[in-house]
């Protein structure tokens, strides 16, 4: 008899855990803040800049490219931040990788594909060094990568001045003609589609000069393809694989992760390398598109990446975040930055607007995160 009452006293479900409706459950996710922000930003610009060409194909490619740029470095910064670390050397790494490619091709005459591979290997080696130092010294990655922000920037200016007496090295486009890897970064895809769209009158055509008759948008830049590929890769890695679980664990609680056998050091070092790799993708696309590299490229890009990630709902202290959110953060960033130009807003107000968005996003994200994780 006593046993049966005992059974009855323990209900099947804890009466204090409120049931969540499936809709609410589907909505409450790390990206929610970024999704709301994206919708809001688009409504805002459709309302005030509809007729400015912002949503014509040319305009879309414009802010799409800028967003894609942010997204490429945001994916790296996002995974690294979830793993509990920062990389402030991203911007300097962009300048460094670009100069390496330009120097090797233009100045020293190596084939472009070789220069690109060397740039990637160098960048990832420096990323690994960043990670190694953070782990070995136990210093905050904030400090270690801040040091590399200066080291890399200084080194970049030094080597370009020392070898060419200039800080801008041009002529990469000419020496990269027909190179297999150059097209992978600087080219465009789906050109045929745009010629067809132009013939239909959906996309405008050039009216003067040697390119008259060609569509004004002649393809999707590889930059966007890379961004998309990195977002998909990052998202699957983080949410669908064992390694993704280790990234969360490494950032959530290093010690707890170590105790259950997660190779925290390896995860963190790999994420530093991934971040450096993303910076190099950014740099290579830029160098191949513009045909030149400059020692001051990528200035402050590390903060833009971090801002995108934070708008996307990631926690600055690690262990929580979403690649899709970071990508949406990058989209918001790009749309706002270029959209304010389209809207004709005084450009100095861009920072004000960005600050407001950042603040609102973080407040909203904190609120959502508390709902999910039960933090108090």
């Amino acid at each position: 008899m006593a046993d049966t009452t005992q059974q009855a006293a323990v209900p099947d479900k804890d009466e204090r855990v409120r049931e969540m409706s499936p809709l609410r459950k589907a909505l409450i996710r790390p990206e929610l803040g970024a999704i709301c922000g994206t919708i809001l930003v688009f409504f805002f610009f459709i309302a005030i800049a509809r007729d400015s060409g912002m949503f014509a194909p040319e305009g879309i490619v414009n802010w799409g490219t800028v967003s894609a740029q942010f997204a490429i470095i945001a994916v790296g910064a996002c995974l690294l931040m979830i793993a509990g670390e920062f990389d402030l050397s991203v911007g300097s790494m962009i300048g460094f990788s670009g100069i390496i490619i330009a120097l090797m091709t233009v100045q020293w005459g190596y084939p472009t594909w070789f220069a690109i591979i060397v740039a990637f290997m160098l960048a990832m080696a420096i990323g690994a060094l960043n990670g190694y130092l953070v782990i070995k010294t136990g210093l905050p990655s904030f400090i270690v990568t801040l040091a590399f922000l200066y080291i890399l920037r200084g080194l970049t200016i030094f080597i370009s001045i020392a070898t060419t007496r200039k800080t801008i090295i041009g002529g990469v486009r000419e020496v990269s003609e027909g190179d297999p890897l150059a097209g992978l970064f600087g080219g465009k895809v789906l050109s045929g589609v745009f010629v067809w769209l132009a013939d239909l009158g959906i996309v405008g055509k050039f009216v003067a000069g040697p390119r008259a008759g060609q569509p004004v948008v002649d393809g999707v830049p590889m930059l966007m393809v890379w961004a998309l590929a990195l977002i998909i890769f990052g998202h699957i890695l983080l949410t669908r694989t064992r390694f993704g679980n280790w990234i969360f664990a490494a950032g959530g609680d290093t010690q707890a992760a170590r105790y259950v056998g997660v190779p925290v050091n390896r995860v963190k070092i790999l994420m530093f390398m991934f971040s450096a790799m993303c910076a190099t993708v950014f740099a290579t696309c830029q160098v191949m598109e513009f045909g030149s590299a400059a020692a001051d490229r990528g200035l402050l890009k590390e903060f833009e990446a971090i801002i995108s990630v934070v708008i996307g709902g990631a926690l600055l202290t690690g262990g929580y975040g979403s690649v899709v959110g970071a990508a949406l953060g990058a989209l918001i960033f790009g749309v706002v930055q270029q959209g304010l130009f389209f809207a004709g807003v005084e450009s100095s107000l861009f920072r004000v607007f960005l600050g407001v968005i950042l603040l609102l996003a973080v407040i909203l994200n904190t609120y959502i995160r508390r709902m999910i994780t039960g933090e108090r």
Partner: protein
Amino acid sequence: MKKIVMTMAAAAVAFSGLTAPAFADGERFVLVSHAPDSDSWWNTIKNSIAVAGDQMGVEVEYRNPPTGDLADMARIIEQASASNPDGIIATIADYDVLSGPLSDAVAKGIPVITINSGTEEQSKKIGALMHVGQPEYDAGKGAGEKAKAAGVTNFLCVNHYITNPASVERCQGYADAIGVELGGQMIDSGQDPAEIKSKVMAYLQGHPDTNGILTLGPTSAHPTLAALEETGKSGTIHFGTFDLSSEIASGIKSDVIAFAIDQQPYLQGYLPVVILTNLARYGVVPGNSINSGPGFVTESNIELVEKYAGEYR
């Protein structure tokens, strides 16, 4: 959460009020510079386009990459041409980066005038109507010749914008006129006044035989003035600078600065707006590029210049 969305909406409304002028009547031109937000020299150009805009009854927007990153500047030019203005005015801070977006704008049928940085030749290659500026190397060389005549043998070139090729050209021209090879005399001073000042002081301490200084604009000239003042070397070193400001003007009056090379930026902002407006309205356009400078400002003609220094001069 509702509250937050409301706040965001309120912010959105507040901002939409600021954007109304974009769709005023009259032609719309966009001026894209390469200067970071911190560069005060561009105020003169901002003022000049405001004056020209008022006089012509057109609207001129000023755009610049906040950090001075030229790749960002290329995106801004692409954006400008996507918004279909009646004309684009842009600097050619880096031909490789900017020639693509600028010639795309030309191909779209948008008239382009290049100003300030860049050469006439580059401007032609892009397909721009003209270039309004000052040949940098020649201006530097002119400064160097004056310095040489004053007996300068060892010099310092304070470069606050080392990543702009035009700035290196200036130092190069100066060095060539004096007849020395350009090397360590060109320092990368950065944009921060305190930093520039201490770098100049350190250089002068390490190179006591320096008898000539060239600064490339107010950004580097003002801290250099302060550095000379503090080390008691004011007036003992031949000091030439590019561009004008009220501090530079008073430096010239008190004999600390020998001369300022005036590229007359007012014209670089004003003329393109006038020319583009006339092109849009009546289809008339001058056939040649315009050299807005160099003009040398010395003690003899300073009175006239000083009145408007930093504003229109």
